[in-house]
Structures are given as C-alpha cells and as structure tokens.
C-alpha cells in the first residue's frame, strides 16, 4: 500500500469574540494509505470535527489554522495561511461530507439543481447535461435509483438524503473524503446502507481514502481499518480498528468502549457507567495528561507531565499507564469503577460554554 495522505503538526484555534484563543486541535498528525478508512473517535468537544474542517480545507473564521501541512500524492500544502490553497484542492482533492448536510439545503432546490451547482462551482465549463450524466452514472454504479435526482430534499428519507449527499460530495472523485458524523442521525439500517455504499465507492476507486469521524465506536469498528481516538484536541491512541476496540491501551479509549451499549445478554444484568466528569474546557486544559481528572488509572506523574508516546506510528498510546504496562490492554473495569460515581457530569466551566467547539454546531437556517 502506498501513502495517500500525510498531515503533520496540525494546530488550530478558535478566536473568541473577547479576544481569547482556544486551541481545539493541538499538534495532531495523521496519515492514510491508499484505499484506507481512518476512523476518528471522541466525545463532543474532543476536536474531531475541527480536525475534519482542517483536513478538508474548510476552516473559516473564527477557526484559524496555526500550523500544519497536508501532503497528498506527494504534493505538500501548508495550511497555516502562509501559502494560498489552490482552489482545485477543495472538492476535487479533498471533499467534506458535513454533518446534517441535507437539512441545510434550500427546500426549493431539487437534487439535480444541487448536482449541477456543485459541479459548476468547481468547473464553469461543465454543462448541465454532463453534470447530470455523471450523477446518473454514479447512482447507477452504486445501485441507487436515478429518480432521486428529480426529488426535493424533503421527499427523501433520512438515509437516502445522506447517501445522496455523499454521492454529490464525491462527484469530483476526490482523493480523500472526510465524513463528519455521517451516520449519527440515522437508524441502524440506514447506517449500514451508508457504510456499505462508502466501502463500495472505495472499491470502485471513486475516492482513495476516507476519514470517518463519529463518536460511535461500533460503527467505526465496522467501517474503518484504523482508529484514532481524540481527546481534548489531541490524539491519545491509534491502532488497528479491531485491536483498538478489543484491546485498548489508553484509559480514555477503554472508557469510551465501556459505555457502548450493545444488544448482548451481558448488558441485561450489569450496570454500565459513563465516563465521569465532562470533557475539559479547552480554554484552560488540565495540566499533564488532559484526561487525568477523569481517569480511573491516574498516577502522580499524570498530573504534571505530558504523557509519553508509547508504541510505533501505527499502534501507539500516549499514556503513563501504557508505559508501565507495555503491551497490555486497559482493563475495562478499572476505568469505570463504581467508585467513580456517574452522577457528576455537569460541565464545570462557568461562562465558557462557548469554548466547547464541537458541542455547539452553528445554527443553520432551515
């Protein structure tokens, strides 16, 4: 497999109206190989959607990219605004599938109008018929009915809407597709259909790599090859999807996993606990390991020192516990011990709720 994307040292912050800077993504590096799906997991406010915005080159004020570079197919692009991003990159090299996209489309537009607009926004010389032909071919190749082109958004079911938007945002055959919470609003059946379609598109080489952002670990396990877990703006663990979900090496990954509810007999009897506390306010991140106030395996050094990088580039965890217990997975029981009661998840951040980037998506007029 050859390397498709290398993104290094990404750092981005939101500038608040009162002049503060809140760093939402802090020194993140990711890479993706040809044909790979990289999953990004994390709670609300972990910075995962911000990472998606940076990688899809759609960061806009109040979000500013402070540093970082993106290398695709050997071409390197600085992201910190020092050099202009070529217009052609957006949409045809990287493309974003945003959260709840179809809900923000004018209800007076048919899907076909949208297809034409999207194609022509990138290439003025494309005729209406060419654009529609392309969309028709695409729908046919994915076994979807071409009549969706004549539908208005409200005539489509939630699952169909999301699949349609996915197809539209990949019409230009982007090298990398960034899908931000594409399945979160869907029921399981539509989730499965969307995932199957994405994998089929990868196989047909419509795009060469996918970054799939969601808080839903079971979905990530199904769709992705590797998973990166984000917490408070940093990647805390990376690993093969199966390995990470069965043998996590970071207490946060383990805590996320332990709060997943799956229909299995064991869940009828036991009491599951969520992660105590709330994600930190990124305006004042905790010292040392950012997860230490909520961690069940916290040690002295976690309070003060930056956690070490344990493992290689493909499988690592940034954690003192992992350093002291090499090769071991975090016991799920330890992170959600009942001693850490579940009651207190109140956000203790005074007036700073505005600084929880992922929690407050901008309102979109319907």
């Amino acid at each position: 497999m050859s390397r498709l994307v290398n993104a290094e040292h990404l750092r981005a912050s939101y500038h608040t109206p009162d002049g503060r800077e809140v760093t939402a993504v802090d020194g993140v590096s990711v890479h993706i190989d040809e044909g790979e799906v990289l999953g990004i997991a994390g709670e609300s406010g972990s910075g995962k959607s911000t990472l998606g915005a940076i990688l899809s080159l759609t960061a806009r004020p109040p979000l500013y990219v402070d540093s970082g570079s993106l290398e695709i197919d050997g071409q390197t692009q600085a992201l910190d605004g020092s050099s202009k991003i070529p217009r052609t990159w957006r949409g045809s090299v990287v493309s974003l599938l945003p959260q709840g996209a179809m809900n923000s489309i004018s209800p007076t537009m048919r899907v076909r109008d949208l297809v034409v607009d999207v194609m022509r926004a990138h290439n003025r010389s494309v005729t209406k018929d060419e654009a529609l032909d392309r969309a028709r071919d695409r729908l046919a190749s994915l076994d979807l009915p071409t009549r969706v082109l004549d539908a208005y958004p409200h005539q489509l079911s939630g699952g169909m809407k999301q699949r349609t938007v996915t197809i539209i945002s990949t019409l230009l055959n982007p090298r990398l597709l960034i899908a931000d919470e594409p399945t979160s609003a869907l029921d399981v059946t539509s989730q499965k259909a969307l995932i199957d379609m994405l994998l089929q598109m990868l196989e047909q080489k419509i795009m060469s790599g996918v970054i799939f952002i969601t808080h839903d670990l079971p979905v990530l396990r199904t769709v992705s090859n590797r998973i990166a877990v984000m917490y408070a703006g940093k990647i805390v663990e990376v690993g093969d999807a199966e390995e990470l979900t069965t043998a996590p090496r970071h207490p946060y990954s383990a805590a996320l996993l332990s709060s997943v509810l799956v229909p299995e007999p064991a869940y009828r009897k036991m009491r599951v606990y969520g992660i105590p506390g709330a994600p930190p306010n990124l305006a004042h991140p905790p010292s040392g390991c950012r997860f230490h106030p909520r961690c069940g395996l916290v040690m002295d050094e976690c309070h003060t020192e930056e956690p070490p990088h344990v493992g290689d580039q493909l499988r690592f965890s940034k954690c003192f516990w992992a350093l002291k217990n090499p090769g071991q997975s975090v016991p799920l029981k330890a992170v959600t011990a009942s001693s850490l009661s579940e009651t207190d998840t109140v956000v203790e951040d005074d007036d700073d709720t505005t600084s929880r980037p992922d929690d407050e998506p901008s309102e979109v007029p319907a």
Partner: protein
Amino acid sequence: MSEIFAAKELTKTFGHGKHVVEAVKQVSFSLQEREVVTIVGESGSGKSTLARMVLGLLPITSGQMTFQGQDVTHLKDRAAYWRDVQAVFQDPFSSFNQFFTVRRLLHRSLRLLHADVGRERLEESLQYVGLTGPDVLDRYPHQLSGGQRQRIMIARALMLRPKLLVADEATSMLDASLRVNILNVLTDLRDELGMTVLFITHDIGQACYVADRVLVMENGLMVEQGSTDDVIFNPQHEYTQRLLSDVPKLHQAS
C-alpha cells in the same frame, strides 16, 4: 403490578382523499406500573407518531386509549392528563425555547401544580438529574451543553411527578457516555419514584440495556412484542431479525 396504560387498535392517518398516509395502523399494547417499555423501529416506522398520540399531542384517528382505567382517547382536561403523563424529546436543542431561561421554562410547567409544592419540586427534580439550581436556572439554552439540556428536560418532566414518562429518542443525540448516564437516571427514577417509562429508540443496544419489554414497529404496524430477552435474543419476526443483524458489532464474537 397493575396496568397503567392501554392502547387498543390505535390508528393515525394523515391527509385525506388520495393522499392518505397511515402512519400508525391498529396498534395495541399495554404498560404495567413501574415498567420500562421500549418501542424500537426505524425512522418512519410510526413510533414517534405513536408517542405523540399517547401524550395527547396528536388527535387519534381511531382506536382507544385508557390511562388508569379512564378513557383518554379524546381528552377534555388535558392539563390534568399532563400532570400524570410527561415527555422528554429527542433534540436537546429544539426542545428549548431559545428565548427562555431555564428558570422560566421550569416555572411554566409548575403552573400545572399547586403553588406551594412548586419551589420544592423544582430543586428536588434538578437534584435527581445531578444539577443544582444556581448553576443552571438563569442560563439560556445556548449556554448549556447537550447533556445538561437533556437533564433539564428530564427535570422538567419530573417536577410534575408523572406516573408515565414518554422518552422519545431522548438519548439519540448524545454521546455514548452521556447516553448511559441519562439511561441510568431514567431507570433509577423508575426505581425511586415508581414511574412507568415508555422509551422510544431506534437503538436496540439501548433497548436491551433498559427495557423490561420491547415492542417492535415497522411501517406503522406493531410486528413483535414481548419481554426483552425474548425479542432481542430470540426474535421471531423477520423484521426484528434484520434490525438486529444491522446493528454494528463491537465484539466480533457475537
């Protein structure tokens, strides 16, 4: 245990003439006291329409509903019904009037009660969901996190000490970790206050965790109902089997 709520052949149609859509078709079920019952189904299966009928928010086309032995199909005194039957909705943002503070939201619901019990109830209900009044009462919804908003919505319903709480996709929009906490709050309240909970979700994992009984809906029809163990671990209807097979697996073994 005694029956608190029963629905008999509830039907809801929208539109008229050629454009009739039957959203709910002849659905019958009953809820026992202190029971957590989950309705599972895809979007468009009619489960939310059913919930709105149970809540008396949507007129019923045909069928019959009884609550504590009284016929509540066509409500005359809705206020009295809503003292006993309350709801928490899906979207922790759109459930709030963004122009109201939390205090104003809660005080509005208190009008259903006698003035003297109001203040006590308010504080008490916030405590149940792990919040304290001074922290949240004077905030506007955009100043609260998603989890806090949903807890306030639960507190609002709890103030009235409902006998039946309808939670319509109340956890769908929350993170897994918060979701578990909210579900725990709901089941604890059942234990402490003796509420009956009708929980509506598309997530079988959640149904499995909280429910005593599961009802499965498809295209407006109730296709299967029974105890959680029977429905989830030994599904009879083909639709239930498909729903289960579509659930993404976390542990490959299962």
